[in-house]
């Protein structure tokens, strides 16, 4: 496997970092591991290389099924390969289409894959995602719930609890 940072030298060091209380793992070459421990001013690496590095790592671990039929986003025409290469999404629908792959990437980037910030006004017209996503979300929300209770943020805790209930109800419905 190549180093996930420079994509040039073979990876030899297992590097872990804690992001949002979650452990993020990376495989780096010796040189990059050394540099990553230190400070980088305006780091020279390109974000898209870095992201596609993480994605390839995911496929190495069997997260991606081999010889999968070519997936193309109907709205923007982006293929999974293009997404993997550029590390960028083509449109909002790409997030829906590639969500099972994205969750892993987002967890590595942000330590989390569930939004808990503001939403646009009252018109909450988010997209419905499929089952596995919801299971992950429930786990994420349960973590948030514990945190909120620990911090004695009871209003927030009640809100999160309601969201979990809704999701669980949705999941138990026959598809």
């Amino acid at each position, binding site marked *: 496997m190549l180093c996930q940072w420079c994509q040039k030298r073979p990876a030899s060091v297992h590097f872990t*970092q*804690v*992001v*949002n209380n979650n452990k993020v793992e990376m495989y780096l070459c010796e040189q990059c591991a050394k540099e990553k421990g*230190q*400070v980088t*001013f*305006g780091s020279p690496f390109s*974000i898209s290389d870095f*992201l596609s590095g993480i994605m390839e790592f995911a496929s190495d671990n069997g997260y991606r099924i081999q010889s999968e039929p070519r997936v193309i986003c109907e*709205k*923007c*025409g*982006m293929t999974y390969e293009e997404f993997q290469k550029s*590390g*960028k*999404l*083509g*449109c*909002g629908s790409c*997030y*829906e289409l590639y*969500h099972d792959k*994205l969750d892993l*990437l*987002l967890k590595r*980037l*942000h*330590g*989390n*894959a*569930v*939004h*808990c*910030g*503001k*939403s*646009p*006004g009252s*018109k*909450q*017209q*988010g*997209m419905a*995602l499929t089952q596995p*996503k919801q299971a992950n*979300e429930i786990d*994420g929300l349960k973590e948030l719930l514990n945190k909120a209770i620990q911090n004695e943020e009871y209003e927030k805790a009640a809100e999160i609890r309601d969201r979990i209930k809704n999701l669980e109800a949705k999941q138990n419905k026959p598809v």
Partner: protein
Amino acid sequence: MLDDKESYGPDSDVVVSSRIRLARNFSKYPFPFRMSKEQGLKVLDEARESILNNEKLSNEKFLFVDVNQLDSISKHVLVEKHLISPDLEESQKDSGVIISQDGIISIMINEEDHLRLQCIFKGMNIDKAWNKCNELDNIIGEKVDFAYSNDYGYLTCCPTNVGTGIRASAMLHLPALTMTGYIRSILEACTKLNVAVRGLYGENSEASGNMFQISNQVTLGQSEEEIVSHITRIIDQIIEQERVLRLELHKQNPYKFEDRVCRSFGLLCTARIVSAEEAVKLLSDVRLGANLGIIDDIDVNKVDELMVLIQPANLQKISGSLLNPYERDIKRAELIRKTLKG
């Protein structure tokens, strides 16, 4: 010190400016790098319509700048002033920026995302910048359907921005931490806390005038308020440390310290040829001296303005002509002398 404290913003001895940026996309079009020419023009039109003709924003004095129509110097002036990004400067797409007359709001259209809403305030004002940017987002959000999912939040072109789409940042002047080398441990600690710190003008911190940009890395899984308060706590710590070290350095050898500051001031007030790199370094000393009361007849705002105006594009814009590097060094010295004495 001169003037009322208000015009500097809180903690201006260390914090030059605070900024919030929100990334937003229109739900009905692909992200900019996947748009057709027609879609790009539609985004530009709809963005202008929803912002410039928005009754709730009618008291903002907005100016739309068609970035594609600007000459290269005028474009780079906006980059040096942090009103547009280098990416927008180089963009081949139909793009633009809406800037408020007071310079607080800038909204980039068709950069990496359809909209990048940005609010900048002087001093340590991340909260104020967030409130302003949040309000702006709410108002524009009434007119535009933003790409949003309940699970991932605001959808952005790059997954590093998804969720809140927020980048909270501050520009810090850290001469004492840099001189003593403690900056390294600060930067290391920040990396562990998922906060990025970069030298501002180039790789070398001396050449950057000891200016550092600090910003959050995580945008998903935390609320905007959590992100803002996390980075605020870190910045508050850095401010404390920088202040302690400034006083300590001064106490240890007041003559040497004051000599350095006053020499730098003297050089800037008299020199006839100054490179950008030298100017930024000397201005950093003057800023430090002014904030410690060693140089007392100088406005720190003017020093901060000079940091921008002495950059190549701004200097040529002020001069109204293209200048070679040698001519620039002469103009730069002239501008600094005039400003510091005025």
